[in-house]
Each structure stands twice: as C-alpha cells, then as structure tokens.
C-alpha cells in the first residue's frame, strides 16, 4: 500500500516537473488547442491564428528593435523566411506537420520556419537537416535550462 502511495506521489511530482521543462509551445500544445476549443473549428482556427500572429509579431518587434541597435546582427539573426505562407495556409501546414508524432517536440517558432520552407519548395534533404538541427537545439536548450 505504502509503495503504491509513494509511486503516486512520485508521479504527481514528476509530471508537473516535465511540464515545467517545456520552453515553448510545441506539437502537443498545438494539438491540444482543438480540445481546449471544444472541437469548435472556428474557435480552434482563431486560437491557432492568434498564436501564429503572436509569434510573428514578437519576432518582428524584436527584429526592428535589434535592427536599430545592430543592423548586420539583426539581418543575420532574422534571415529566415516566415511570411511566405499566409496565416491561414500556415495553420493548415502546421496541422499537417504536427500530425506526425515524431515532430511533436519541435517548438512552434521552429515549425513556422519549417512550414515556410515547405511552402518555398526547399529541397527535402535541407528541410530534414533543419528539422534535425531544431530537435538538437531544443534538446540542448532544455538540458541547459535544467542545469
């Protein structure tokens, strides 16, 4: 009995700890939106497009700020194309991208870049390389964050 209680306690402590490790919204959050929106397609879309617009606004705001401080640095940091797809297209491509569970833990800001690469018809081997790079990057960030 005691053993069961200890296991439950460990699980209770462990699960929120796992949640805390996440730095960004990722595939599981993206898929959860539908459930949060009570499977209402319009509300789901509005939440998703709200998030995507948020990421793009956050990016643009700090790009402009960085650009006023150091132009070359800002241009190199924000070189990715993120506006090739319209928000509506982006939401659709992100849905497809996260339908594959293997992409689940890629952060949404990275997924937005990847989806735009799909839209731009960049060769698949380059996209695969970027996906692998994103996975390694987020794993490294989470490990460093834990330390």
């Amino acid at each position: 009995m005691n053993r069961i209680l200890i296991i439950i306690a460990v699980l209770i402590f462990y699960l929120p700890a796992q949640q805390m490790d996440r730095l960004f919204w990722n595939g599981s959050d993206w898929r959860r939106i539908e459930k949060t929106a009570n499977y209402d397609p319009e509300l789901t879309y509005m939440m998703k497009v709200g998030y995507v617009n948020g990421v793009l606004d956050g990016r643009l705001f700090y790009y402009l700020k960085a650009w006023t401080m150091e132009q070359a640095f800002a241009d190199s940091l924000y070189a990715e194309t993120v506006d090739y797809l319209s928000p509506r297209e982006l939401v659709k491509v992100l849905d497809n991208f996260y339908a594959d569970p293997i992409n689940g833990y890629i952060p949404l800001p990275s997924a937005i870049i990847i989806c735009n690469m799909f839209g731009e018809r960049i060769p698949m081997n380059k996209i695969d390389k970027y996906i692998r790079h994103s996975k390694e990057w987020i794993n490294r960030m989470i490990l460093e964050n834990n330390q």
Partner: protein
Amino acid sequence: MLSRKIILVGYIFAILFAQRENRIFWDGSNWNRISTKLGKESHSVYQIKASHLNGLLDGRLYYYLKAWEVEPLLAEGTYNDPLDLLRYKELIGALDNFYSDPKHNSIPVISAVIVENMRIGGISEKAIYRYIEETRFWVNNIRTSADSMSVEILAAKLDKHLSKPFDISERYGRGPDYKQKEVLIKPRSPIRRDEDIDKTSWYQKFTKGWAIGISGGVNQWNSKDSLNSSGSSYNFIIKTPLHFRTDNLESIIRFETGVINFSSNLNGQQNSMYVQVGLRESNIPIINRIKFDIGAGSVIGTRSFSNGFIISLRKNKLNLITRFYSAGTSNKSQLPSNWALFSIGFNF
C-alpha cells in the same frame, strides 16, 4: 452623378482595404474585435487572447535564445523589456483596460504588454506616457512608409521568385533578355549558415570517410559444373571515402581481401574492388536498403567478376550479401567458372 458615387464608394473601399493590409502588428482594434465577435463574457475570448500572448512570448524567447548563442551582450540589451511580471489572467485584464481607451488602438499588443509590465514594475507614469508616445510615433511612421515599402517588398519577392530554377519570366511577358533588378530586401534561407558551418575541406572528408568491416559466408557451385560442392570465404572489408550521393542515388566503393575455400581442397587469396549503387529517399523503405553490387578482382590468382545485391539489415552496420561470381576457368587452378556466394558482413 451615380457613377461619381460608385467611384467614391470604390475609393473608400480601396482605402479601407489598404489600411487593413498595412497593419503590421496586432493592435488595439484586433484585441477589441475578439470580444466584439465572440461576446464579452465568452470564455473563448480569454483563450484566444491567451494564445496570442503565448505566441508573443514564445516568439520573443525563441529569438532571444538564438541571439544569446551568437551575441550574449547584444541579446541582453535587445531583449531586456520586462514581460513576465503579470500572470496571463492579470495581463489580459490589464490589456482590456488599456485598449478600452480608443486612443491606444494603434499601439501594438506587444508594446501594450511592455507598458502594463512597466506599470506593475513601478515605473513612473511620466516615463510610461513617454514610452506610449514614442511607440505611437514609430508605429505611425512605419505604417505611413509601408505603402512605399510594400512596393519594394513585392518587387523583391517577384525577383526572388523569378530567380528560382524554373523560369516563368517569359510566360509573364518578360523576354529572355530581362535583367533582374537588385533585390533590396533579400530574405536568406536559414540553412545557408549551417552550410557554412558544415563546410569541410577535401582532406578532412578523405580522412573521415574510411571504415572497416568483416564478412563471412558460404559458396555454392553452379550445378552445371562438374564439381558440385560448397565452400566458405572470409573477407576483410575496407570502405573508402569515395561515397557519391545525390538526392535519389548513392554509391559506395569498397575493397575486400580475404580467404576463399572450396571443398576440393582448393583455397587461397581473394582480392576485389566493389562498387555498390542504390536508391535513396524512395517511398518504399525496402528499396532504400538494397544496393546493387558490381565487383572485379582476383580469386586464387584468376581474374574474377561478380554482380549481386546487398540488403542492409541494419543501415551501415549489418549487410546480407548475395554475389554471383564468374572467374576465368583454369585447369591448373580447377576453379569452377561460376558460383554463388552468400555472406553476412559487419561494418564498423
């Protein structure tokens, strides 16, 4: 008279749509429109606003971390705005309050978040007022220059599109002598930087590409030959760095040297060079694991040629090899003219 009215209405529509297009950030009007559309008391309003705020903070954190890896000092300077002093619920309430004043409608949501965090952080109202006015100034400035900018961006996008491998310029009325204008705002691919990092010199590739392995298996005589029995072979494999790879095709060159035995007490040295060619990125996974194998060398001092195929049981580790050998017949060596070899190879 009627036509003038139609023109006027058309003009107003054009202006209104242009205004909508030139909005760069989500601002007060987007924020308030959510409540107008879904009803003020709706829980969905909170969910959409929270999603947007999550996106803002994720977008900021993502590029902060990217910037920090390259230029920590510059990143600290750029991303030093206070954004996390309020919880989402408090922040949404504060933003609702902020945007209830129509004169704040043009302030971007992200600036409003900074303003509310400044307020809770104890910054004086005078400084906050100044920040709002500065924000209003640069946002309006960007908006007014957006018309001219958008033309440049469109021109840049068109040039970028036309510079792609498939040329559609002729279809759009531009002759083959069309010269591309200099692109003002040229987006770059994010992996271009990675390519630079991965750039290794030829001698590094040459020293890195070597690998070794072993293989062992059985030989079976062709039944047409007078000698109908089996034997065995053991080989030491040297994989060379001469790997050629395209998006769909892969080829490897390797050497094998070892011992071959036949049951007629005939045994000796075997040396051969093999070229293995296979498909990559095929939709049928098994095809990606099969390579055709062509070899030339010597078996017990006699020239030999082989062809066969290799199935990777574990990619680059464990291979199932089937080869059909043909060697110059020699009465002295009593070699069979044709035989099949089945072996398993391990690569390290």
